[in-house]
């Protein structure tokens, strides 16, 4: 963990990992005995289609009921042993499916029939849970047509290697994916965002306009990239009206790979960061339990340590070693209990460190007072809540150790819920 320098006048500065920093090739993690995958839908009554004891094939699409648009892709061949509700972030209710694996992989052939006729429906049917976790809803929204597809090639957070590794090793698949996306959507304008140090590695190799971003954190965070491309940031109505569609390079590579081979990709590339800060690269089936991954690299987890999905600035802490890696898990980071910084309930003392470091000029010292009191609308209307690009630097420097970033994410989530409820009422 990086500490404040003795001369506190200088701002702390972080840099993303570069493509040249990637040393090793990913270690393939053997298929675990059980995997768990999620369907992002509430399990209201027992599923008509999925039953425990049912056998599934690798790459088979699983959905709870007939006619559901939401489903998932089985990453292994085996038998379903349990279907149970799962409580995800912000109290969302999903369905968790546990599959006991068999030794040999049998590939499902349903997708192969769709290769010749790529369409948005095909993408939305098979790819929302493929590595990179793309969301195709913005492309299907007819009221807000998308003009530009932005492929995000950088790493999601500091310390992580995954994003650039995928771009480096799967450039061909990314090109195929771009072609498929162009054919399906008819959108010519495709932009790939990469750190400026890596531009020369990709320009000419990829069939899209290369846009470079600074490798200094947080200038490659998705919202910051969006701002630099469009000059705007999404408000409570979401990013739809900006006409820009965001997709990770890994998702584009998944699409390209699938349309070339006829098989849906089920392996996720992951950076594992151990307690000493050493990095290991791994490639594992989606749904592999975290504990299994950590065992492979000899990372010991003790009581009161912290396991994080994602990087140190924007990741999510998880509560159990048994939780599976998902299609968007770029990194697993383990923190020893001795170095976990704790938040406090101290009030803001107006030291100004957050205002000083904020890359978006948000008056953090003022907004945090409103958000802490639950006055989200005031925060959005008067104190630039929607200018926040969610980098977490304010909480990193906060003297009072206020969980500012958490307040901001919660406020955006709550306001988004209010807006969508109002839209529902209008219809």
């Amino acid at each position: 963990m990086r500490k404040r320098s003795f001369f506190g006048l200088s701002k702390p500065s972080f840099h993303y990992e570069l493509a040249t920093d990637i040393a090793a090739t990913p270690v393939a993690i053997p298929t675990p005995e059980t995997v768990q995958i999620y369907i992002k839908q509430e399990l209201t009554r027992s599923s008509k289609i999925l039953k425990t004891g049912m056998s599934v094939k690798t790459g088979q699409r699983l959905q709870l009921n007939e006619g559901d648009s939401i489903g998932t892709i089985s990453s292994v061949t085996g038998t379903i042993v349990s279907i149970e509700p799962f409580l995800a972030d912000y109290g969302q209710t999903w369905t968790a499916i546990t599959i006991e694996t068999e030794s040999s992989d049998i590939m499902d052939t349903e997708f192969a029939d769709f290769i010749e006729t790529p369409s948005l429906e095909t993408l939305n049917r098979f790819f929302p849970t493929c590595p990179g976790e793309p969301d195709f809803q913005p492309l299907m929204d007819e009221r807000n047509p998308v003009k530009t597809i932005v492929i995000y090639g950088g790493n999601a957070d500091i310390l992580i290697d995954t994003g650039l590794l995928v771009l480096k090793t799967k450039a061909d698949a990314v090109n195929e994916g771009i072609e498929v996306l162009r054919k399906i959507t008819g959108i010519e304008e495709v932009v790939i965002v990469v750190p400026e140090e890596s531009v020369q590695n990709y320009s000419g190799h990829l069939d899209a306009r290369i846009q470079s971003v600074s490798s200094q954190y947080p200038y490659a965070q998705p919202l910051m990239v969006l701002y630099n491309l469009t000059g705007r940031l999404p408000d409570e109505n979401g990013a739809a009206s900006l006409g820009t569609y965001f997709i990770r390079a890994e998702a584009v590579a998944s699409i390209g790979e699938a349309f070339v081979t006829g098989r849906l990709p089920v392996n996720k590339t992951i950076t594992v960061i151990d307690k000493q800060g050493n990095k290991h690269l791994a490639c594992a089936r989606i749904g592999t339990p975290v504990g299994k991954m950590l065992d492979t690299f000899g990372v010991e987890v003790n009581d009161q340590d912290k396991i994080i999905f994602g990087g140190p600035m924007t990741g999510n802490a998880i509560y159990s070693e048994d939780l599976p890696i998902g299609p968007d898990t770029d990194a697993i980071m383990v923190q020893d209990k001795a170095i976990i910084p704790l938040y406090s309930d101290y009030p803001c003392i107006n030291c100004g460190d957050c205002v000083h470091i904020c890359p978006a000029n948000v008056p953090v010292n003022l907004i945090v007072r409103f958000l802490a009191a639950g006055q989200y609308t005031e925060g959005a209307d008067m104190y630039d809540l929607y200018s926040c690009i969610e980098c977490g630097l304010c909480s990193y420097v906060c003297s009072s150790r206020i969980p500012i970033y958490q307040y901001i994410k919660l406020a955006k989530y709550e306001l988004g819920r209010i807006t969508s409820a109002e839209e529902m009422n209008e219809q």
Partner: protein
Amino acid sequence: MNSKKTLIVSHAPFWHDGSGIPERSYHTIIAALPAALVGIAYYGVPALGVICLAVSSAILWELLFNYAGKRPITVGDGNAAMTGFLLAMLLPASAPWWLVLLGTFLAIVIGMQIFGGIGANPFCPVALAVAILMVSYTTHLDFDAGLVNFSLDFPSPTDPMAALKAFGPAAIENFRPMDLLMGLHVGGLGSGCGLAIIIGGVYLILRGFIRWEISISFIAGIFVTAMLFNMADPARYASPIFHLLAGYTLIGAFFLATESSSSPVNVIPMIVYGVMGGIMTVLIRNIGVWVDGVIFAILLINLINPLVDKIRPKAIGKVA
């Protein structure tokens, strides 16, 4: 499904730069220490007594108020100790015990706790307490009267600010700037030695515990305003160097005006805030009735802080 290991969860970010309120408080005390040591060296044990009583009573007032208000115990953050320490530095070494107790009560309870504790005070608590004491107990805050029984080895036995106010610049001709810088003049027990305060202030600035824009613009405001007065009529108004080195100027610039919750955080507001403080200080000193204007000037700029801090850069992505 549930593993036996209990993991700690929290929201991102999972790193912290290690800064904290206790550090800020204790480093401010460390920065103020050299000036206080000089004061103890000149004024002896009474000065040490005032400092000890102020620090301990400030902590006790906060503890009492924590209990009375059924709030979490916050004395561990060092803010009360720092407030007491800075208050003692402004008092004369001759301050009686009850004045010190009253001063720390005013600073901690009236200045801070009744507004909601640390971070909620609209005024610099130390400046507020000293202002109330100055208005209420004029003689005890009058350095000439208070220190009359001290045998001091200074070039002049009078308070330079009081001498200037009463007799004009002619009376301060024997105060050499070097003596003022070294603290060889009558004044607050910790506010006399300009050199020690500057060392402390530079330390705080380099460590990032105070915002340099405020200190520098406060000093610049005093210097420029005093220079204009001096150029207009040198026979009536003292030189800017004198204004910089005498009275509470330097301790005000580095320790009082920079109090974090009552000062702005954006660059332009910080400069406006500091310059306004400097101008007000010299106005009060040169054409007001009070001997030293720093305390009242700081309370005045504390008042305009919420207003000036509205001048801020436009946040990114805002259409309007």
